[in-house]
């Protein structure tokens, strides 16, 4: 009975691993990107692409309605989510679109009657980091983002499944192997220590 069960668990472990292989690599790369602090869009040293659009804000319009007018005028970047309308430290109105590729920021320069559009495109490493953080919670209307986030959902559950099935396989079929017992014991002890240290 246990042998049969373990046979099935092994199949699930292998198939889940193959179905989400690239995501395992992606998760690993994303972890290394933040561990090694790869430059982000503001610290990369790459100047943003700049363009200017003539625009006059209504004299009695609210920030929200001006932001919506800017949103209609400036084409949203591909895969960008809902824009974020806010004022910056210099009290200028900004409309920001964040996407996996970086940031598109439209800043209203009221006294010059124009919008300054800055496109910050991130490095491939930060792109991969952003891609790993895209989940079904994003609720994007973009079909490519939707497809990606649903595959990500499969990958997340696969990761959990591989972890649990891998532990079962290690215990059920390799328990006689002393190093396996030590590895599991050391891993568990380290986890418990870190759990209470961080808590």
């Amino acid at each position: 009975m246990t042998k049969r069960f373990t046979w099935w668990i092994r199949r699930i472990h292998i198939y889940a691993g193959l179905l989400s292989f690239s995501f395992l690599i992606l998760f690993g790369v994303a972890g290394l990107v933040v561990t090694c602090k790869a430059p982000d869009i503001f610290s990369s040293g790459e100047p943003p692409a700049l363009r200017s659009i003539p625009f006059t804000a209504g004299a009695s319009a609210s920030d929200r309605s001006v932001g919506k007018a800017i949103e209609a005028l400036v084409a949203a970047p591909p895969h960008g989510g809902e824009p974020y309308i806010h004022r910056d430290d210099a009290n200028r109105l900004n409309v920001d679109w964040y996407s996996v590729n970086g940031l598109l920021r439209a800043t209203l320069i009221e006294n010059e009657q124009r919008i300054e559009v800055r496109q910050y495109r991130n490095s491939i490493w930060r792109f991969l980091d952003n891609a790993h953080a895209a989940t079904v919670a994003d609720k994007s209307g973009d079909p490519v983002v939707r497809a990606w986030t649903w595959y990500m959902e499969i990958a997340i559950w696969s990761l959990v499944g591989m972890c649990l099935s891998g532990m079962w396989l290690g215990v059920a079929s390799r328990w006689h192997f002393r190093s396996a017992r030590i590895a599991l014991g050391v891993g568990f002890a380290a986890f418990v220590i870190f759990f209470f240290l961080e808590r």
Partner: protein
Amino acid sequence: MYKLIRNIHLLLGLSAAFFILVYGVSAVQMAHQFAIRPHISTAEVKLRPGLTGREAAQILMDRYGYRGDLSGSQAAGANLQFTMTRPGGADLVTYAASTGNARVERRELPLLGFLNRLHHLHGTDHTDMAMNAWAWILGWISVTLILLGATGVYMWFRLYNERVIGSILLGVNLCVSIGLLALLRR
């Protein structure tokens, strides 16, 4: 060679399994936005009057066991406010420099919230050594995930009776994920 790779896969996987579960479970929490409601409690601590925010925080850490990354102090009326943040929660301190009274509001995160914060914890520039140590764990887990993937594919490739189904699954995975990434990068 196969035996060596199999042992590397096994030992890496077993030693990292609980840490990887932290990332997996917290990813599920984030994807499905399970609510996180902190438990809030307060404590009153008597300190010396006339301290700066940093001095007050240092005494709270040394004598009363509080810890975490210290935020900058801000004036809140006649008081000073600062926060000490750690993955398990945060302590918001309101210190009255005139009397020396400090009110500490502790926001303790439930398990899922704690795992969420651990998922986001990175970088070795924290003042809290435990948080820096976790950043090294993250680096180790990242390398481990890549090695587990690579050794896993190698082992599957050596299982001849699994090649057809495996090739289809791996092919689908690579085509779909690389294709979607290329479309996203446009």
